[in-house]
């Protein structure tokens, strides 16, 4: 998106204030003749019309333009080289550099939590934002990367995304705007319900993963605000014993067949 503006230089700079080259890099750019610096602090997803932002900045009277939405600053600023070349540098410009305020009314999500991440995934799958899932759209609102393996018995309720090189085994159910990122394995009979599985994650057989984001062995249950390590909970075959979770789910199934007392 930034390169679409014709910007020739895109650089990623450490957010760490202790990082000595953080400011220095921008000063070097300014000294080399870069006139305007677009600073995007990673941490939010916002569908800002950058062309409109640049136009607004040029029309403004101030060397800095900051982007805000209804919740506050979005961490996107456009600044003239002059303010970078001041003694204090741009890191401290908040207090003394006069700035213009660009009010953004479009789609934005701050990625400060897994709840926000799930919201972004859901919005993307439901077409409520500009993110379009990659992969092949095998049917309406179901995207599967060509290198993913999905057993024919897998039940998928749209919308859903399955990433590259992921392996979805027999009997798995995926529903409720769930997503499986690249290189994951969802083992036999596991159910994903309003869940996102981040890259390189293995999920043991027979699990019911609901309202959660799973990253490796870390599961965060969004509804209950609880984080779990699946390894220590004995639910990750990569770390613990592979047979146990399957055995457990089979036993639950046995109990169900004879008539569950609970439900």
């Amino acid at each position: 998106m930034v390169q679409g503006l014709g910007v020739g230089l895109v650089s990623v700079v450490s957010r760490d204030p202790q990082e000595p080259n953080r400011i220095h890099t921008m000063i070097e750019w300014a000294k080399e003749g870069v006139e305007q610096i677009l600073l995007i602090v990673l941490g939010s997803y916002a569908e800002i019309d950058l062309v409109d932002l640049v136009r607004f900045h040029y029309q403004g009277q101030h060397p800095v333009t900051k982007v805000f939405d209804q919740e506050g600053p979005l961490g996107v600023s456009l600044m003239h080289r002059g303010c970078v070349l001041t003694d204090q540098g741009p890191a401290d410009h908040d207090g003394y550099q006069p700035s213009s305020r660009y009010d953004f009314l479009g789609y934005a999500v701050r990625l400060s939590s897994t709840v926000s991440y799930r919201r972004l995934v859901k919005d993307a799958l439901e077409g409520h934002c500009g993110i379009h899932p990659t992969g092949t759209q095998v049917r309406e609102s179901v995207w599967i990367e060509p290198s993913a393996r999905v057993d024919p018995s897998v039940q998928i309720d749209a919308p859903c995304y399955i990433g590259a090189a992921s392996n979805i085994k027999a009997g798995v159910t995926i529903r409720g705007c769930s997503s499986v990122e690249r290189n994951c394995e969802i083992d036999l009979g596991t159910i994903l319900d309003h869940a996102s599985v981040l890259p390189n994650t293995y999920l043991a057989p027979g699990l019911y993963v609901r309202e959660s984001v799973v990253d490796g062995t870390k599961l965060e249950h969004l509804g209950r605000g609880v984080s779990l390590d699946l390894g220590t909970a004995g639910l990750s075959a990569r770390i613990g014993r592979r047979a146990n979770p399957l055995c457990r789910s089979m036993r639950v199934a046995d109990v169900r067949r004879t008539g569950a007392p609970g439900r």
Partner: protein
Amino acid sequence: MKSTPVTVKRLPDASDQASQKRFLRDIKEFVSRSTRPRLVLDLSGVEQIRPESVDLLLECVDHAERGDGEVFVAGPSARTTVILELTQVASVVRMVSSVREATAEHQPDDFESGTQSCSLHAA
């Protein structure tokens, strides 16, 4: 023979196999002499249920089911609730917030002698 007898128990230490065997033996005996027994497992105070205890809980469900009974899990922490949901054990037990809730409609006479019937008042 009592009608709808209740026993309230805490799960034994997951690392103590002897306690686990004794616990299961007690459960079997309770179920074998009861009609439609209600087994209340008090998990209050358990921060996170261990895998061995999940297996033990399933054993309890299995035994209770043979006697046409039911298992209540009382006072689980949020972490334990998530684990029981993840393992789908939550679908074969009744999850309640406290022992009191699980035993609300029972009279003191329903409680198996020697079990933690005092939990009825302590919960």
